[in-house]
Structure formats: structure tokens, C-alpha cells
């Protein structure tokens, strides 16, 4: 593992590597996301029960899916950072957390909006919404801890420990919330448990899931590059990169 990772442990190498990926990732993310959203919101057929209001799933489902996996990615980054003492993994944590928080927030808000036509209320203590709310709190905790430290290396380490504790807790929380939900609400009909989706809806959904995934990737890559520059600010290679950027910028303005 170490031998494989070693060449990638140099910030400069990673910065340039990510720089090569980034344009492609951003472009495909924009295209796929655009395709998925337009297809889902405009061209996919309306639901026979929910009418047009179901269309929010093209945003809700992908963000909800990735909010969870991003937290797991966060914990994996923290784990790698601890075990192999890789500072890059700590920066990865700082890059992933805000993206995950935003995705969780979007999924919460879209879930609530969807709840209005379905349940007639903005907020229902439904098992999934509640779990999502707790996941949101977990993200907030990790980020708050990270920013509470003045030394960001320590902040990342502390936040990483919290993320690992959180990831062990997530299955327990999910299970407990589900149990609590059945205890208090009996068998409420949830909109999430539905017969299999028609292909005409499923395909745009899959496309937009892919789009959101690429978007998360592109955002994290860009954040990671910023983080590398910020952390290595005093290194010669960063100064070189920044000077180059300034030079191209200048030549552009001259041409204009």
C-alpha cells in the first residue's frame, strides 16, 4: 500500500495530477448533470399518483445517496491519514467535508419540499429524513471541530477521529431511528417504498445520479487543489505555479 501510494504522497505531484483531471471531470459533470436534470424535469413522464411533484427525486435521491458515501469517504480519508501518517489524506478530509455537508443539506431541503405534497407537512419524523438530519449534525460536528483549531493539522486530525467515531455510529443510528419510527408511527406509508420505477423515469434518474457523483468529484478535486496550495504556500514550487498563473493572466489582458 505504502509503496503504491508513495509517489502520490508528494503534494506537488498530486496537485498537477489533479490539475490534469479537473477540466475533464468538470466538463463531464456539467454535461451529465445537465442532461439528467433536463431529462428528468422536462422529458420524463409524470407519475400517475404524484403528478409532477415526484420530479424532485432527480435532485433528492442523488444528493441523499452521495451524502452518505461522502461521509464514509471522509472517514476513510481520516483512517488513511492516521494509519499511514499521510498529511494529504488530512487535506482530503478538509476537501470532502463541506461538499458532503452541502449534499446532505440539499437532500434534507428537497426531502422536506417533497413532503409537503405527499404528507401535507414540511417536516415529518420519517425514519429516513430523521437519519438524514442526524447525518447533517454529524457533518456539522466534524466541520465545527476542524475549524475550531487554529492549527489546521491538528484540526484535521481531531476531525478525523470524530469522523471515524461517527462512521462506526452511523449504522447504529440508522437502525435505532428505524426501530423508533416503527415503534411510534406504526406502518406509515412512506413515499420511498414504491413499486419498481418505470424505465422512462429510472434512466434519467441514473443519469442524474452519475451527474451528481461527477459534480462531487469535480468539487472535491478543486477543493483539494486549493487546500494543497494553501498548505504549501511557502514552498518554492507553489510560488512557481502562482507566478506562472499570473504570467498567463497578464499575457491574456495584454492580448485583450
Amino acid at each position: 500500500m505504502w509503496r503504491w501510494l508513495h509517489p502520490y504522497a508528494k503534494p506537488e505531484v498530486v496537485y498537477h495530477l489533479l490539475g490534469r483531471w479537473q477540466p475533464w471531470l468538470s466538463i463531464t459533470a456539467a454535461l451529465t448533470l445537465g442532461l439528467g436534470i433536463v431529462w428528468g424535469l422536462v422529458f420524463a413522464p409524470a407519475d400517475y399518483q404524484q403528478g409532477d411533484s415526484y420530479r424532485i427525486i432527480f435532485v433528492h435521491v442523488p444528493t441523499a445517496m452521495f451524502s452518505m458515501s461522502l461521509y464514509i469517504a471522509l472517514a476513510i480519508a481520516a483512517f488513511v491519514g492516521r494509519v499511514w501518517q499521510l498529511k494529504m489524506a488530512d487535506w482530503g478530509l478538509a476537501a470532502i467535508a463541506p461538499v458532503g455537508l452541502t449534499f446532505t443539506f440539499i437532500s434534507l431541503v428537497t426531502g422536506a419540499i417533497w413532503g409537503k405534497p405527499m404528507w401535507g407537512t414540511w417536516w415529518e419524523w420519517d425514519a429516513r429524513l430523521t437519519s438524514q438530519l442526524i447525518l447533517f449534525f454529524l457533518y456539522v460536528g466534524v466541520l465545527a471541530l476542524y475549524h475550531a483549531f487554529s492549527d489546521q493539522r491538528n484540526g484535521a486530525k481531531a476531525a478525523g477521529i470524530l469522523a471515524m467515531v461517527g462512521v462506526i455510529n452511523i449504522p447504529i443510528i440508522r437502525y435505532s431511528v428505524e426501530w423508533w419510527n416503527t415503534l411510534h408511527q406504526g406502518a406509515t406509508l412512506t413515499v420511498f417504498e414504491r413499486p419498481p420505477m418505470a424505465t422512462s423515469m429510472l434512466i434519467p434518474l441514473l443519469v442524474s445520479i452519475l451527474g451528481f457523483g461527477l459534480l462531487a468529484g469535480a468539487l472535491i478535486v478543486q477543493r483539494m487543489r486549493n487546500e494543497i496550495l494553501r498548505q504549501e504556500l511557502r514552498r518554492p514550487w507553489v510560488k512557481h505555479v502562482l507566478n506562472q498563473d499570473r504570467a498567463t493572466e497578464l499575457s491574456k489582458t495584454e492580448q485583450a
Partner: protein
Amino acid sequence: MNDTSNWAAFTAVMRRDLMVVMRRRSDVLNPLLFILMVVSLFPLAVGPGPDILGRIAAGVIWVAALLSALLGSERLFRDDFLDGTLEQLTLLPQPLPLLAGAKIVVHWLLSGLPLVILAPLCALLLKLPAEGWLTLMATLVVGTPILSAVTAIGAALTVSLGRGGALLSLLLLPLFIPLLIFATGAVEAALMGTAAWPQVLLLAGLSLLTLLLAPFAVAAAIRVSVN
């Protein structure tokens, strides 16, 4: 390192913490008084009728317990950090998770155990029906170690920040949710006349798991904090 020296260090840490707290008894008493006051606010807020109070009693007691755990958690490592004893602990040849475990045990003895003892009084004030008493006590006995262990993780993470307070609640409260759900669920089951032992056993299992893993997280957090 052999077992005797590990054990000696474990008891030495415990003894020191116990002696320090015995000199500052208000630290133990204040969280308990806090719980008592929170509990007596509820009849004033929602009315003293036994049907409402009895139904929310277990929930109120457990929420008060969570809040009081947060209230007293800062002192768990703060003084040790400030006077340098925490740093000395990390330099001992004995495994740090073991010593962290000693501190968790002391914390439970001084905050969890008194809570268990205080619980009948709270149950009385909140008119919890008699069927629920035994289950409430059982959930407190197996649940409060989780409180101490998880609180210790949060306290160790924030000890170097100097302003734990609100941040600590932000970190810890989400982690307490399963505890709250299963503990109050158990009492509710007992009140409805169904078996409460599955939840109590589940809590006991969670408690063991937490006690097993938390010392390692605490030790890792201490190492970050003394850095």
C-alpha cells in the same frame, strides 16, 4: 510492560482523579442538582397531571442525563491539560488507552452512578408508573457507561481549545441518539406491558462495544490535543 505495572498505573490514575474530585465535591453535586431542577421544571411547564408526566418521564430523565453529562464533561481533561499531567500520562510506558479507560471509569463512578441512585427520586417527581421503574433503572445502569465513554472522546478532542462548551454539545449529542431511543423505548415497552429486556440487552451490548472502543479514540484524541 507487564500486567502488574499496567494495573498499578491504572489504579494510580484512578486514585489521583478520585482524590482530586473529593476535594471539589461541588463538581459532583452540581450536575445532579441540575438534573433535579430540570426534572422539576417539567411539571411546572406541562402541568402536574400524571398521564402526561408519566408518559414523558423516562424521556425527560434521559434528556436531563445527557445534558448533565455534557455540563460536567469539560472538567474531565481540562485541568489535566492545563497543569501538564495529561502530557505526562502520554509519556508513560503503559498503554494510553488503558489510562484513558481509568479516567472513564472514574467519570462514571462520579457522574453515572450518582445518576442511577438519583433516578428513583426523579421517577417519583415525574409520576412514572411503577411498571417502568425497574426498566428505567436498568437502562440507566447499562446506558450511563456509554455517556461517560463518549463524553470522554469529545472532551479529549476539545480540551486544547479552551472553549469546549457549545462545540462539545454539537459533537456529542448526535452520537447519543441511539442511546436515547433505546433507553426510552425500553421504558415505554415496560409501561405498555411488553417485554423491555430486548432493548436493555441491546443497550448493554452497545455499552460493552463503546467501552471497548472508546479508550482508543480517547487516547488518539489526547495525543492530538497535547501536540
